[in-house]
């Protein structure tokens, strides 16, 4: 044992397609012994973990980003190639590369394995999700597959740890360094000639990709531009087919030998479902109906728990104001902390329901089909299928959505996706929309759901429209191709959905207990100082009130008064849902003769316009404000993330600028069309 533990740690690089279960395998191997950071100088996440092999020897495992190919076009792919070839100073050259294959989509995964083989590094492959593939009638002959690919291919089910004993045994087995699989002639000779002139020991994959992409592609040494053109001209028009086509033909031959498919009837009915769900007409109709049903369910089912939470918060506020000694601190607790935080916590049932429904749709495999409907619109506006995940992610929150654009290899296409991602409706907009819908849209849950669906669709349509303008003007470039893998249909897992819901609930409450609490305390101070001798004019004469009055002339054409101005300002400097907590604090401080224990929506409905004596929160005002929130960039976290991801504050500011302009114009038009002013 002593000898074994004294051996230097084994360095393992883990690589695989997205959705191959690579991260599950990594987590299963390392448990909590992992560190997540960034590769220096780039925004690619670095995950390194440690675990002990069966002999007691330590192993360090590097989880490379999920990639579909090794052609080093995106930052993720470039890092992967560098790590595999031992070219990064911050990661030891791997002793073994484990390629995680998705057994459900073996043809796609084998393309990556084939490219890793071309690098000539020691390789081991795991056909993961093997259980699901078997259930779908896919039978893999591992012996034939290993023989045909020239590397050991093991059967694994990472979620249950199946095949891990054999994996451990293979990791410690003596490994031979496989000779690289040569590319067909004359590509191989061209690569050899270029390699001699190319700095930094490039792999065949990189050189071959440079020959396909031409000398203008990213990351190609300028000094070699002429030589690359010369070599690719020499090979002629068959170049792409010689490189990419030969890989595909080889994989097709391997699959024909080692993979058998059964249950044609079952696969036929899945194909039929896919056709219905992804058809532009039937698919769109089903998608709209499903979303409407979700929103209706969200409004109807959340009413009782929301009322219960609201009553609880109001009782707490009442108890604080009545039972505690009178004074500023009691005011701070009642009007600042409880009113501000409580106003947002009330929305917890809705957030949970929304994510529960979306989680079920995602887990069942339906959401991927629905998202595929976007393929045509995305291609028309110049974005590729790689924009799916960022845009879908932005429906939860734009921050991870913007970060997910790292998978887009083309810099201009990526920037365009970053710039439009925050237009997708994020969950922070939900409390704002719900309060406003509850205030100005009087009707059934179905009517309210319809308005909410309209707001989601407006966000999507505007994202596509802005992308079209950007891709036709300043961010013009060739659209990259993308292959989408459709996950299998399955019953949603209670565990996965439950875990997701718990995570979101935790984060939502954490946010309410940190940022929203902080802003509410600060806003309470700004609405209470300086002290006015006339309590009725306290809010108006406070710092916040004066700030609101300052912006009032600018927002008056949209139908907003200075109180809304305060909400917009606090939203601008923090986040969208702060609007709701701000309104709650403002209306608590300024309860006047009204009922201080009334709910926020009721208080907004009862607010009178001092000029006309009529309701202050009319339907045109509410609609205009909702449209304003569809377009406006009122989220400081997103602004900072965009600046980081685009490596430029200029683009972040451009985004704030165009989104604000859009918000202003659209809100103005809505206010006028709805009959305001």
């Amino acid at each position, binding site marked *: 044992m002593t000898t074994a533990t004294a051996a230097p740690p084994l360095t393992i690089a883990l690589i*695989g397609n*997205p*959705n*191959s*279960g*690579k*991260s*599950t395998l990594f987590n299963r191997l390392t448990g909590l012994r992992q560190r997540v950071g960034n590769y220096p100088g780039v925004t690619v*996440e670095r995950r390194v973990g440690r675990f002990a092999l069966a002999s007691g020897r330590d192993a360090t495992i590097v989880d490379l*980003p*999920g990639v579909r190919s090794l052609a080093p076009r995106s930052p993720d792919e470039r890092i992967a190639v560098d790590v595999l070839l031992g070219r990064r100073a911050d990661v030891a050259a791997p002793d073994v590369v484990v390629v995680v294959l998705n057994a459900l989509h073996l043809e796609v995964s084998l393309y990556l394995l084939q490219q890793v083989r071309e690098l000539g590094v020691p390789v081991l492959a795991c056909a993961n999700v093997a259980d699901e593939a078997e259930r779908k009638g896919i039978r893999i002959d591992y012996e034939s597959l290993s023989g045909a690919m020239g590397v050991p291919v093991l059967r694994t089910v990472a979620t249950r740890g199946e095949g891990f004993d054999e994996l451990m045994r293979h990791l410690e087995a003596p490994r031979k360094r496989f000779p690289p699989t040569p590319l067909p002639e004359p590509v191989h000779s061209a690569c050899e000639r270029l390699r001699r002139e190319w700095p930094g020991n490039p792999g065949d994959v990189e050189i071959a990709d440079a020959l396909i992409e031409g000398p203008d592609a990213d990351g190609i040494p300028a000094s070699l531009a002429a030589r690359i053109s010369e070599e690719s001209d020499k090979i002629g028009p068959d170049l792409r087919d010689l490189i990419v086509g030969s890989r595909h033909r080889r994989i097709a031959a391997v699959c024909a030998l080692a993979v058998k498919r059964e249950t044609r009837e079952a696969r036929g009915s899945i194909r039929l479902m896919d056709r219905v769900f992804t058809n532009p007409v039937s698919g769109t109709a089903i998608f709209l109906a499903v979303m409407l049903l979700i929103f209706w369910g969200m409004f109807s089912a959340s009413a009782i728990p929301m009322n219960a939470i609201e009553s609880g918060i109001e009782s707490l506020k009442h108890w604080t104001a009545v039972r505690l*000694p009178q*004074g*500023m*601190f*009691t*005011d*701070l607790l009642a009007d600042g902390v409880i009113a501000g935080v409580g106003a947002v916590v009330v929305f917890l049932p809705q*957030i949970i329901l929304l994510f529960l429904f979306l989680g079920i749709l995602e887990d069942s495999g339906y959401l991927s089909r629905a998202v595929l409907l976007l393929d045509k619109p995305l291609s028309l506006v110049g974005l590729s299928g790689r924009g799916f*995940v960022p845009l879908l*992610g932005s429906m*939860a*929150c734009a*921050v*991870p959505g913007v*970060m*997910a654009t790292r998978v887009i290899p083309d810099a201009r296409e990526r920037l365009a996706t970053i710039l439009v991602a925050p237009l997708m409706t*994020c*969950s*922070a907009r939900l409390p704002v929309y719900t309060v406003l819908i509850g205030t100005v849209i009087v009707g059934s849950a179905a009517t309210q759901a319809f308005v909410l669906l309209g707001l989601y669709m407006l966000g999507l349509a505007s994202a596509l429209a802005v992308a079209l303008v950007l891709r036709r003007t300043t961010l013009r470039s060739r659209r990259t191709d993308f292959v989408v893998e459709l996950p299998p249909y399955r019953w949603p897992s209670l565990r996965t959905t439950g875990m*997701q819901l718990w*995570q*979101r609930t935790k*984060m*939502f409450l*954490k*946010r309410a207990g*940190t*940022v929203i*609490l*902080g*802003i509410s*305390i*600060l806003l*309470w*101070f700004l609405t209470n100082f300086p002290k006015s001798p006339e309590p009725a004019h306290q809010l108006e004469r406070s710092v916040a009130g004066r700030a609101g009055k300052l912006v009032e002339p600018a927002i008056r054409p949209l139908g907003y008064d200075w109180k809304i101005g305060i909400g917009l300002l606090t939203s601008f400097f923090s*986040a969208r849902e702060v609007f709701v907590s701000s309104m709650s604090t403002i209306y608590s401080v300024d309860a006047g003769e009204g009922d201080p224990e009334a709910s926020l929506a009721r208080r907004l409905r009862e607010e009178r316009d001092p000029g006309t004596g009529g309701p202050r929160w009319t339907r045109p005002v509410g609609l205009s404000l909702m449209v304003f929130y569809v377009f406006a960039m009122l989220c*400081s*976290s997103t602004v*900072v*993330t965009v*600046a*980081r991801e685009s490596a430029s504050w200029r683009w972040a500011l451009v985004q704030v600028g165009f989104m604000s302009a859009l918000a202003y114009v659209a809100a103005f038009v809505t206010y006028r069309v709805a009959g305001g002013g």
Partner: protein
Amino acid sequence: MDVQTTAALAVVAITACWLAVRAFRGLRRPGCGACACAPAVKRD
């Protein structure tokens, strides 16, 4: 100034400092931390 006012102003001052530090740290290392959906980045 009475005890309640002093306590309220102390809470406000601490909160303001905390928010400023948080904003500064957020500029250096964004990723909300507060956002309800950070785990939604699926990197597999």
